[in-house]
Structures are given as structure tokens and as C-alpha cells.
């Protein structure tokens, strides 16, 4: 059981690492946000599920497990809304997309 928990947390650390590398390397703000979604999904969920298993199996603390599950639910429900708001706000504030971008239907439709 402890090995399953280690594996979950290891996966989550790997995806958090990939997300941070992506945030540093991506060409513009929007692509950086795409990479940060990596951290906010698998990076967080692995640690939370590992924590639930650990507190339920080894600490015998049901309350802690339930609170971790509630944290996970709130995280999953709220983080896409924040991501959407940041992306829309950045676009309307005039953050430029990288020159590598192949198309921008949103900008074209706004000019019409």
C-alpha cells in the first residue's frame, strides 16, 4: 500500500516538474497557462489522492481523509474558472500572442 502512495506522489511530482519547465520555456502567456494546467490537475490530484490513502490506511483518521477529498473537489471545480478568467482578462488587456501562433479567430471576430 505504501508503495502505491509513493507511486502516486512520484507521478504528481513528475507532472509538477514538467509543468514548471513548460512555464519557463513556453513562448507566451497563454501557452504558459496551458503548461500550468499540468500542475493544477495531475500535480495536485496525485498528492491529494496519496494523502487520502495515507491518512485513511496508516493514520486511521477518517476526518482528515474527508477534508482532503473536499479540498480536491473544490480545487477541481474552481481552478478552470480561474484559468478561464485569467485567459480572457489577459487577452482583453492586450497581451500579445506569440508570432508562432497559426491563427487567432477571436481577434478576427472582435475586429468585425
Amino acid at each position: 500500500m505504501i508503495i502505491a502512495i509513493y507511486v502516486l506522489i512520484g507521478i504528481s511530482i513528475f507532472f509538477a516538474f514538467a509543468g514548471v519547465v513548460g512555464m519557463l520555456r513556453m513562448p507566451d502567456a497563454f501557452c504558459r497557462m496551458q503548461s500550468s494546467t499540468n500542475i493544477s490537475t495531475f500535480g495536485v490530484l496525485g498528492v491529494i489522492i496519496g494523502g487520502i490513502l495515507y491518512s485513511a490506511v496508516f493514520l486511521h483518521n477518517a476526518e482528515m481523509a474527508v477534508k482532503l477529498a473536499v479540498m480536491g473537489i473544490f480545487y477541481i471545480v474552481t481552478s478552470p474558472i480561474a484559468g478561464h478568467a485569467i485567459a480572457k482578462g489577459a487577452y482583453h488587456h492586450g497581451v500579445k500572442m506569440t508570432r508562432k501562433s497559426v491563427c487567432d479567430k477571436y481577434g478576427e471576430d472582435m475586429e468585425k
Partner: protein
Amino acid sequence: MKKASFPAIVSTAIVCFIFWLLITGQVASLLRGEPSVQVLIAGAIVSAAAALFSARFFIHESPFYLCNPVRFLKLIAYCFGAFVVELTKANVDVARRALSPSLPVKPGIVKVPVGLKSEYAQAMLADSITLTPGTITVDTVEEDGKDYYYIHWIDVASEDPEEAGEAIKGTLEKWVRRIWE
């Protein structure tokens, strides 16, 4: 802003109260049959007050839609089945792009048609798309009775709305439609 109906306030208050029970750790003592009455009363008052102010933002139609067990089971199946599969695929894909030396990205904003009518279904699909790495819903718009999403996509495989929609939404839209329609 529309005013909230009474059932909408009740359903929001029930959800608030369930989360109050979970966060204050009352579930275990309720199961033992010795709940702390003070905590329950405080929770009821707080969740009723919160629902009174916030229901009009959340609930606009059919407040008790998910109380049907079949729909609720479908929602659970979506959250832990179909969605996890898409999430895993997208996570591995974006992690591979970020770590590969040549940084193979082809970003762009595409316009994608959505065939869902219910507000909840549209919100759920937009959130699912934003939560999968590689795609972010930037805005939604309604043109000639049809709904469109503007989606920032890290790897634009096709600029055609239909093909892009097929690639981005995948099985998600089918599942969301099964839950809400």
C-alpha cells in the same frame, strides 16, 4: 440579474450545508448518532444566508435536476471514468511537449461549435475543456442561435471549426449531453 426562485435557494442551501458537514467533520459524529447541535444550527443559519445571496448566480433552471439517481450515477461515471481518460491523455501530451528539446508547439485560438442547449451543460463542457491541459476556453458567444467557444489550443491541428471541435471535445461532449439532456 434574475431573481432566484425559492427551490433554487433551497437546493443551494442544501449543497452548502453538506459541505459544512464535511468541513467541520460532523459526518462521523452524525453516524454515531451524537451530533453537536450547536454546530448543526450554526451551519443551517450560515448556509441559508449564503444561499439567499448567491443562489441567483448559480441556479437558473430545474434546481433539483441531479437528485435523479440515474443522472447522478452518470455524473460520477463521467468524473471518474471518461474525464480521467481524457485528462491523462492530455497531461502526458503537454508534459511531453514541455520537456522535449525542440518545444513542438503550434498555438492559436480556434472557434468551435457547441451542440448543447442547457446552461449547466455548457458550463460543464467549458470547464472540462479548460481543465484538460492544452486547451483553454477563452470566451463563449452566441451567433444565429448557435453557441460557439473560442478555445486557445496549444497544438492547432485544424482551423476548421468542425474538425477542431472533434479533436478538442472528443468524447467529452457526448458524455455531458448524456448527463444533462
